[in-house]
């Protein structure tokens, strides 16, 4: 298995346009404070560089790139952007506006699962680093 991480922000310089970053570093504790809905970055990045959803969408017919696929891409690309190099698993609820982050890292995920009814967890998603 090969793990590929986007380790730093140096590649951003080659892409025109602003790219949103969290205002402060995230770590295991900080991430908890950041839990919540992340502003999707794809709309802004879409016009700027190769790592975007618009180009992705343009490659496929609408019967393939359905709203479900688009939402999945939006949510996962956003999580990749924020968490890829941090190494923590993320528990989130997928929404058309972007991921609603519920827990970051094993400790938070276990705590969330403990306090949340099983049926309420059924539609949740995990993002793996």
């Amino acid at each position, binding site marked *: *298995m090969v793990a590929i991480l986007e380790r730093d922000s140096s590649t951003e310089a080659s892409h025109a346009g602003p790219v949103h970053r969290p205002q402060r570093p995230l770590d295991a504790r900080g991430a908890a404070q950041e839990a919540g809905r992340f502003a999707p970055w794809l709309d802004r990045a879409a016009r700027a560089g190769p790592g975007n959803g618009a180009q992705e969408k343009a490659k496929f017919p609408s019967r393939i790139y359905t709203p479900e696929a688009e939402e999945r891409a939006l949510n996962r690309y956003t999580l990749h952007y924020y968490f890829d190099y941090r190494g923590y698993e993320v528990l989130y609820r997928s929404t058309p506006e972007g991921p609603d982050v519920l827990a970051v890292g*094993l400790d938070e995920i276990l705590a969330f699962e403990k306090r949340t009814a099983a049926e309420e967890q059924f539609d949740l998603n995990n993002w793996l680093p």
Partner: protein
Amino acid sequence: MSRLEVPLLSRKLLATGDVLLRGELTLQLKDRNGVWKRRVFLVDSGSEMTTMSAFEARRLDLPIPQVATRGAVHVQTGLEIRSGYLSVRVRGMDAAEYALPCLFLGDPAAAVRSAPAGAFSRRLLGLGGVVDKLRIFFDGTPGPSAPYGFLIVEKI
């Protein structure tokens, strides 16, 4: 025949523009009390054996060997191993329960923080003891809601 098709997941490597693909499978793991715990595994045809963190397994109250295997370590991470089994069901398929061999990595009493990012936290579904129970293959033919195709799992 129970069959599951899961869209392959994509992301784009910003530095190069390459599209990276992966297949993930949601398993339900049975703990010591018979309670099912949902966990997502990365399907890895390059892995000879299923692996997960011993620390996480203990936190989930999964049955794992008390003692680490002597004379062997997990090469990729350098972690000690415990050779055991996971009792699993595949979410989205029938209720059949499978006992899948699994190497539990690291010290169950301590989270691993020294391995490369991601390596210690990944749950990998490997081949050993799996492919004789579940036929797993990748089909890159695009389908509805699956631009890069599917991970397909069939009960054997």
